[in-house]
């Protein structure tokens, strides 16, 4: 749907159109912010309400996708801010995580077979902005699109993406070695 047509819709119709196109992405983002299934459901509902309310003020400042992603991430960060604050001591920046020993994560995930779960565990341990970049990267957004959603500079995104690639490669290689 093009932007002009989207802007001509009512608030309710905008919300339904946005959820139809990006609802699944939003659900995945929420999973990246909340491990607990019950709280995840509450958070998802909160994101939907935020999206519905925010779309009344959407004037085409950016693409609908960018708007939806921003609202989802900003709501998630706000929702978990208290637990995030208390966990901030444990949360690590992307710069540091690659150097950190993987032993604890390996032990914790010993019985898990899916790489996805391993990566999700890494996502949950990242600081807010790095977590956003990683989730958008997993959605296969290019650096320019990630920069538009996050507001980070293209140079910074390129650096973070480079570290993400190395991190993912290292984690997946570890997993392959474990299987052997």
């Amino acid at each position, binding site marked *: 749907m093009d932007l002009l047509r989207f802007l001509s819709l009512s608030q*309710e119709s905008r*919300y*339904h159109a946005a*959820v*139809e196109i*990006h*609802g*699944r992405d*939003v*659900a*995945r983002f929420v*999973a990246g912010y909340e491990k607990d299934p019950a709280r995840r459901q509450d958070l998802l*509902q*909160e994101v*939907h*309400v*935020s999206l*519905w*309310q*925010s779309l*009344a*003020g*959407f004037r085409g*400042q*950016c693409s609908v996708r960018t*708007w939806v992603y*921003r*609202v989802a*991430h*900003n*709501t998630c*960060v*706000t929702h978990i*801010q208290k637990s995030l604050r208390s966990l901030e001591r444990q949360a690590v920046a992307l710069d540091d995580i690659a150097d950190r020993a993987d032993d604890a994560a390996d032990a914790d995930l010993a019985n898990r077979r899916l*790489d*996805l779960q391993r*990566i999700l565990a890494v996502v949950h341990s990242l600081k*807010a*902005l790095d977590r*956003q970049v990683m989730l958008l*990267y*997993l*959605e*296969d957004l290019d650096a320019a699109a990630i920069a*538009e*959603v*996050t*507001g*980070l*500079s293209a140079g*910074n995104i390129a650096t973070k993406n480079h570290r993400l*690639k190395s991190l*993912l*490669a290292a984690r*997946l290689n570890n*997993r392959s070695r474990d299987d052997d």
Partner: protein
Amino acid sequence: MTEQDLKIAWQQQATEAVAMSPLQLHASAEAFARLIRKRNRIEYVAGAFAIVAFAFYFWLFDGALLRAGSALLILGMLFVLHQLHRRGASPRPAPDDLGAPCLAFHRAALVRQRDALRSAWAWYVLPLVPGMMIFIWGVATELAGGRASGRWVAILVAAVFVAVALLNRWAASRLQREIDQLE
């Protein structure tokens, strides 16, 4: 699994794109507004209860310190309640702000928290300190017949308030470091 395989696996997770009905959306937004109203009501009721209690002490006691302390505490409570009403910000950001780029949104949230930590003690704690000190001093000297050393008790209370203020400043400076580290 390659990096591209991982992205595909991520995007193909079993998730549902279920939209909420208008009724559910309105009900959920209203439930949150009710929660905020309830939180505010609890603070006002607690403040009103304390005002009534110290008004009773003002009427009950003859001692100058106890009466002065009660009066100052009532004035302090009224000031704090007025500030709560005036500031009464919702913990949820305005819907329009949610569409801001994540970095700007994150920075604004940290700045808000830092400013709250820097100023809250001044309007939430400090207005109660003089009344509390004088009242405790009065309890120790006028009610206990001068046996207790009220001055020292009052100084101890003041020291606790100072410690709270310092802790807030320390937490605010931690937030400032986080803000500085943002791009």
